[in-house]
């Protein structure tokens, strides 16, 4: 029986997604995964994170719209779900911006001391300690 076959009394609330659409979404997702893995082997500097996040967001949008039926769902449900990202953004932006402001005051507080490594190989631990500042 098809989804729109017996629409009775407005009870027909099932929206089966056609199989070809499911499959094409899946292949698009796989393709994007391959792209994201492939781009990681090129050095594109600080753009890196942006590219990766854009690809991930496209993938997420595909999953949400088709696998999660969002494209056919009630608008209210869509608003509810998407608004959660606004609150996540709020949380991230405030907390991160504050950490950025205050981090120079204490970052890093404790330099590595040769605590654990000493037990294993003292030489390596010494190296770790002496060469520490190069990364700063």
């Amino acid at each position, binding site marked *: *029986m*098809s989804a729109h076959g*017996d629409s*009775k*009394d407005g*009870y027909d*609330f*099932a929206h*089966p*997604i056609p*199989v070809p659409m*499911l*499959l094409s*979404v*899946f292949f698009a*997702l*796989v393709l994007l*995964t391959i792209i*994201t*893995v492939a781009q*990681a*082997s090129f*050095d594109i500097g600080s753009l*890196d994170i942006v590219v*990766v996040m854009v690809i*991930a967001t496209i*993938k*997420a949008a595909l*999953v949400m719209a*088709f*696998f*999660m*039926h969002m494209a056919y769902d*009630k608008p209210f449900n869509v608003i*509810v*779900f998407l*608004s*959660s990202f606004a*609150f*996540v953004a709020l*949380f991230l932006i405030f907390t*991160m911006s504050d*950490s950025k402001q205050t981090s120079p005051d204490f*970052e*890093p507080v404790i330099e590595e001391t040769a*605590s*654990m490594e000493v037990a*294993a*190989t003292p*030489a*390596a631990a010494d*190296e*770790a300690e*002496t*060469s*520490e*500042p*190069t*990364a*700063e």
Partner: protein
Amino acid sequence: MSTIEAAAENAHDAHGHDHDHPSFLAHHFDTPEQQFDSGKLGIWLFLVTEILFFSGMFCAYAIFRMLRPDVFEGCSQFLNTKLGAINTGVLLFSSLTMAWAVRCSQVKQDRGLVGMLAATLSCAMIFLGVKAIEYSHKWEMGLLPAGLYFYDPANPHPESHTNYLFMICLPFMILLGGVVAWLVVSFATKNKFHQQCAMPLTVAAACFFVGIGLGMVLESGDSERATDDHPTHVTESIEQSETMQLISTGENQVLESLATDSNTGIKSELTARQTQLETAGSAIIQEGDEIAGAIISVEENVMTQRKAGVFFSIYYCMTGVHAIHILVGIGFLVWLLVRAVRKDFNPQYFGPVDYVGLYWHLVDLIWIYLFPLLYLIR
């Protein structure tokens, strides 16, 4: 067939009262559609809570990546991209089969529904199997959360007293044994329903070990290439540290220009920096009688308890909580599978499949972000 019955029942229900409710319709709802809409809004709200739940860890990730990009870059090399990519594929495929399962329940394809749910379950198990390989491998190397971290670059594979892989596998072996026993008993008693439940579950439980095998093959393939692999990213690290030095030289120039204003604070800062640079430089030269020694020392900058340890803390928190969600999802999928074998679902009542599906897609969604954020940092 039962669809028509249900539809007829519902048509009747619209005019009747509680006692005419179809069996799947809870007493306090008027129509199946109201029940479905309530459940759907409920699950969407639940997903909202899930997103905010994970947001805490994404926030921790973002803060530490912002403050110490070098640590993330260095540590990400220890995560096996191939395993991560395979797991991404497996989860995406499970999302496909889950979405397909929802479709099957909506169009009353009972056999297809059972098959799709079994496929989803199997993918979940493969995912966990691959994850088990990743985890046990890192635990043996001591790449653990900050408090437990004991990785030592000079001796990356210490003699291990515990077989972590076996410890992870043990509960799944017991599970597989239990399901197989169930299957045997159901065949012995010729109980059709139990047979239909136990067969797909046995396949799914066995898939955990398929995942283990897959992980092992990919991991070993990687360690063969490790000799080629190792130097490449180490040279990257060197370049990295060189650029860092360049930056600090630039800063020093600025400081030098400022220091002319007889600003003692900046002067002392400048001397401190120069001493630092000298010590650092001399350290490399002194230890650098062998090239390999220098490489290790550069790598070590980040592979310490308070740097890499924090990265692995975040890694374990994020992937661990995600894995717990997979386990919970597996529980729900098993429940659905049994109900699907019982033919509980029809176009008027497919809510539970849809809700679990949404949850499953969310778990997939989170992995879609976790994979590039953890595995693909260059």
